[in-house]
């Protein structure tokens, strides 16, 4: 079975632009979470979605938004990009919510903002 997939692998954007990152969960998983990992730090929680509804949100500005589709895939959108948004964006899927179901991580999307 395929693991969590993310696209694109790398992305370079200019300040002020908008970006959309995509994630496909493991087959059968209904929950998707997004994390931002700045170089040299641990991942920071951004959002969790389950059954197409937002179930959790981290301390990120409103420029960050996400959604989950009927097939459980997800998009993370970031508007008005800042240099500080440069990071590795990780998507993780799990079976369900709530509950400490194991989160399986994708390889990430490396976003560089210039």
């Amino acid at each position: 079975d395929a693991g969590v997939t993310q696209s694109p692998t790398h992305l370079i954007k200019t300040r002020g632009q908008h970006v959309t990152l995509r994630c496909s969960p493991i087959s059968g998983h209904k929950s998707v979470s997004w994390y931002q990992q700045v170089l040299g730090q641990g991942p920071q929680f951004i959002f969790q979605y389950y059954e197409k509804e937002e179930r959790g949100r981290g301390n990120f500005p409103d420029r960050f938004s996400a959604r989950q589709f009927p097939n459980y895939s997800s998009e993370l959108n970031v508007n008005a990009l800042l240099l500080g948004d440069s990071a590795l964006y990780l998507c993780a899927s799990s079976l369900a919510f709530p509950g400490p179901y194991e989160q399986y991580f994708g390889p990430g999307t490396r976003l560089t903002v210039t």
Partner: protein
Amino acid sequence: AQTVTQSQPEMSVQEAETVTLSCTYDTSESDYYLFWYKQPPSRQMILVIRQEAYKQQNATENRFSVNFQKAAKSFSLKISDSQLGDAAMYFCACYYNQGGKLIFGQGTELSVKP
């Protein structure tokens, strides 16, 4: 505030030896779970071991075991018979059912010397 602290930015171990990575956490929640993740240079975050906070018995997974001290809010990872493939960044993380968020520490970079 929910925080996870890893006080060792870097650790080194000789191949076949044992190493212990430290982690402390701070929470007022009673419903939480603890994890250790491994992130090799390839960036893929891999679950190493998990511990339910309500369980007194320390979790073990092959060469990996934890020392969970709930009163001290300490959760260390012991790697026995270290192998070259164990070299990676290790993250301690705490999962809270409320909000479905996984809070990560800053990470410990482990190097294994042949």
